Each structure stands twice: as structure tokens, then as C-alpha cells.
């Protein structure tokens, strides 16, 4: 069914914290690991050990350099490196769903998760054309569309211990940069994080109304110059006497010695 539900009971999704992501790609690996052996067709690789390896991933981490404008005193602000994990944003107005000719793509009324029914998918690729975020990849071996499932086979899975009933990427992130929850509940962890940290939409002008929110990096330039180690790095003895003094003078006098 490619008609979008007018509203969903829950709005499950992720908050991704661009301030704390360290760019380790652990979520990329755990996502691939879980999803290649669970729900749906495996995530194939082509020429994995050869010269041109490619493969299907549901989550990838970009890195961007951001150059803030010059500071008030005219001096150049430091550039920032921001790691940027990207998986399906489970959009409320998902264009990938409405374009699908077969009904393979759908958005669940109960929790808002956008899924592909792989046995209906003809692999036309139109849904990937319609997604502005590059969140869908056609698997080269299976010829069906793959995308983030929000780990639907983990979050409701009673065979898993309680703490594992969350997406693989969230569970594995060592920096806790990914959070999973229900955006329809204003008291949920993700709603509170979004409100407190100014969670934002990617490409809001595309009108997709993404459920996933990104937390912007905290401002860096306003932090005062502060270095906890500085006091300990002061030279202890400025004018050494005796043997140490002699050693200091001799070493300094040697060619290329520190003065």
C-alpha cells in the first residue's frame, strides 16, 4: 500500500548527535552485521577482496569540514570536522513510498517505520530516485531494494534481552551518539533531546518531514581558553645548579641542542 497513513500511532525513529559522533563507523558495521543475517535478503558485497569492492549498506557515515566565519576580533575561527551518520529518516511524508508501483514500499500505521516487502519489489529503483537522502540501495545480487528497517526485528524481539531491544546501530555506538525512541511521545528520551538541543531536519525544503532528528554540534568558539594540563607543563626548575645545571649547559651547547 503506497498511500501514506494520515497519522501514525507511534513515530519511532532516531536522534543522531553530531556533537558526540566520533566517526568510528561502528554503527555501519553493526548495522550490516545484523541486517545481513536477519530480516530480508542479505546485504551483498561485490568483489569484496578485489580492486573495486562495493556493497549494500543501510547506514553510512560521511565527514564534513565546516568553516565558521571569522571571530569578532577578525581572527580566523578554527575549522570543524563533523562526522555525519546517515540512514533512512523514516519520513512522515515519504516520497519513496508513494512512487512505488507495486506496493512493496509502505509506511506502517502503528509505528511509522518505512519498510520494503521484498517479495513484491520488482527492483525498479524509483523509490531510491525519490529519496533525497540516499537512504535506499538496490542490492546488486538480489535485485531488490534495501533500506534501514529501524531494526524492526530487534526492537519488538522478545527473544532478545531487554537491553538489546533497540537498533543495532544505537546499541553499538561507543559515543552514545545515536538514540532510539518514540517522537510521538513528548516525554520520550528522543523528544526531550530534540527539544533541549534544537534537533533539526535534513533538507526541510524537500517537504519529506523526516522523523529522525539531528542534533547540531554544540558551539565551539565561545569556549574560554582553558587547559587543565597547562600548570603541570611549566618548567619546574628555571635555573638548575650543580650536576643538572652542568648537564643542561653542556647539552644546550652541543650542535642542534635545545637552548
Amino acid at each position, binding site marked *: 500500500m503506497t498511500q501514506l497513513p494520515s497519522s501514525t500511532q507511534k513515530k519511532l525513529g532516531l536522534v543522531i548527535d553530531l556533537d558526540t559522533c566520533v566517526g568510528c563507523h561502528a554503527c555501519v558495521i553493526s548495522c550490516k552485521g545484523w541486517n545481513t543475517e536477519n530480516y530480508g535478503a542479505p546485504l551483498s558485497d561485490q568483489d569484496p577482496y578485489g580492486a573495486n569492492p562495493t556493497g549494500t549498506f543501510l547506514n553510512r557515515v560521511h565527514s564534513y569540514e565546516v568553516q565558521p566565519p571569522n571571530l569578532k576580533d577578525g581572527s580566523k575561527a578554527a575549522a570543524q570536522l563533523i562526522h555525519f551518520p546517515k540512514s533512512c529518516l523514516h519520513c512522515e511524508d515519504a*516520497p519513496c513510498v508513494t512512487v512505488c*508501483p507495486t*506496493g512493496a514500499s509502505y509506511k506502517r500505521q502503528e509505528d511509522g517505520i518505512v519498510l520494503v516487502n521484498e517479495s513484491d*519489489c*520488482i*527492483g525498479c529503483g524509483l523509490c531510491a*530516485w525519490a529519496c533525497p537522502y540516499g537512504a535506499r*540501495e538496490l542490492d546488486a545480487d538480489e535485485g531488490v531494494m534495501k533500506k534501514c528497517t529501524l531494526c524492526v526485528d530487534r526492537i519488538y524481539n522478545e527473544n532478545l534481552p531487554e537491553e538489546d531491544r533497540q537498533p543495532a546501530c544505537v546499541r553499538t555506538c561507543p559515543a552514545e551518539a545515536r538514540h532510539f525512541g518514540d517522537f510521538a511521545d513528548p516525554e520520550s528520551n528522543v523528544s526531550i533531546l530534540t527539544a533541549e538541543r534544537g534537533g533539526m531536519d535534513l533538507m526541510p525544503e524537500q517537504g519529506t518531514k523526516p522523523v529522525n532528528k539531528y542534533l547540531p*554540534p554544540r558551539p565551539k568558539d565561545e569556549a574560554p581558553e582553558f587547559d587543565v594540563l597547562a600548570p603541570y607543563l611549566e618548567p619546574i626548575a628555571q635555573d638548575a645548579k650543580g650536576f643538572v645545571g652542568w648537564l643542561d649547559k653542556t647539552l644546550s651547547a652541543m650542535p642542534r641542542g635545545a637552548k
Partner: protein
Amino acid sequence: MHPAPSVIIFTTFSGLGFGLLFWLGLGAIKPMGWGAFLWFFIAYAMAVGGLIASTFHLGHPERAIKAFSQWQTSWLSREGIAAVFTLVVMGIYALGALFGVHMGFTGFIGAIGCLATVFTTSMIYAQLKTVPRWRHWSTPAMFLLLSIGGGALFAGQVTVAIVLLLIAAVMQYFAWMSGDGRLSHSGTNLKTATGLGTIGEVRAFEPPHTGTNYLLKEFVHVVGRKHSAKLRQITLGLAFLAPILLLLLPFNHFFALLAVLCHVAGVLTLRWLFFAEAEHVVGLYYGKR
């Protein structure tokens, strides 16, 4: 976008095929008996051949029947239904012609079906917000003009063909010129894509993978772009100017054939450019265009 041969062949030939069927349906020429067989054979070969070519890019063509189900939201589904409806109606009309019966009303319905099919094809592209160059009324206008213009050329409707091809040439020029700025005017850029524009200038520092992937292969085609100015001239010359000049010469079967061949080559080039020049916004995440 990746200019895949299957979609270029599909859009070119099914457009021409349905264009020829349009004129046959309207009764611009009324061939009977074996003549009808020949005309309808050419039209069906192009229309159906194009549709078959389009299934070559499917991962699971054996499930194609499912693609007729989602007409309520999907232009691709609507296109499939429009194409099958039109081919069936025109098939009945052709059968009549084969036995010497002209069924004017059936032909008229078929002709409308041809326009609907070409229009729904164009909307598959024009609906995509992710490709600002395509999301414009000039996309369906161009598909329709090329279809009935090329169809008129095939059907030997000299005056109509000259007029339609002239309009199409001007229209295509406008589509290129206005399309060139549409991505930058769309408001989508690396700043909105990452949401980091509020901090400062954003630059793609490192892609997520060292090799290529489906997204780059399918959506980020930049290679042929540098020849686009030259290819645009070739397109205008082959698809429009040469056929118009050849039609203006005193009629001659050889010139007519040459006009048709030039036009087909020109439209193939035009469609190559249609895909190769189209910028998908996902390229922004990779710092491309």
C-alpha cells in the same frame, strides 16, 4: 543521473511508437489491409520494444505484473495501465483496419490513450523533487511534443511535423536554459542537506566509503557533462533542423527516410542528455555539483 541505455531506448522508442499510433488513431492516414499491417507493425514494434527495453533495468522483471496495482499514488503504475489500455484499444482498431473497417471512435479513444501514456511516462520524471531539473512543466511538454512531432514525421504528415518539430526545438532550448539553474534555485544545497550551514561553510571532507556504490553509480553521473554544449548542438541539428530542412525539400522517399533516421538519432542524443545532465540532490552529500 546514470544514462542507462535501457531507459534511453525506452523513452525514445515508446514515445515515437505511441506518437505514430496517435496519428493512426486520429485517422491522419487510413491504411487498410496489408498497408495497415505494415504501419501498425512499425508503431507496435517501437512502442512495445521500448516498453520491453524498460524492463531490462528491473531487478525482478518476472514480477512486473504487480506494478499495475498502485495507480492511486504511483505514476509508474499509472503509466503501465495507460500503456496496456492503449495497446489493447489500438489493437482492436488495427484489427479493424486489417480487414478494411475504419473504427473512428475506437481510434480516437486510442489516440487519447497514446497521449495519456506519454504524459504518465513524463510524470515519472517530472514528479521527482530530488531532481530539480526535471521537476518542471517543460518535462511533460517536451515528452508530448517529441512523441506527436516524431509520430507525425513517421506518419508522413509533412506540414504538421515541421510545425511541431519547430516548436519542440524552441521548447527544448528553453528547457535546457531554464533547467541549468534549477538545482541552485531549488534551495537544496550542502548546507540544508547537512543542516550544518548555520555554523559556516560546509565542505565534503571524506566520503563514507573508499570505493563506489549504488548511489554514486545511479545518481552521480558527471563524466559526460563536459561535452554537453556540443551534444546540445548535435541534438538540435539532428532531431529538429535536419528533418525540417529535409521535409522542406521537394518530396522524395530517400529524403523522408533520412529525415526519420536523423530524428531518431537526435532524440537518442537528447534523451542521453536528459539523464546525464540531471542532477540528483543526493550528489550533494558527496560534494558533487
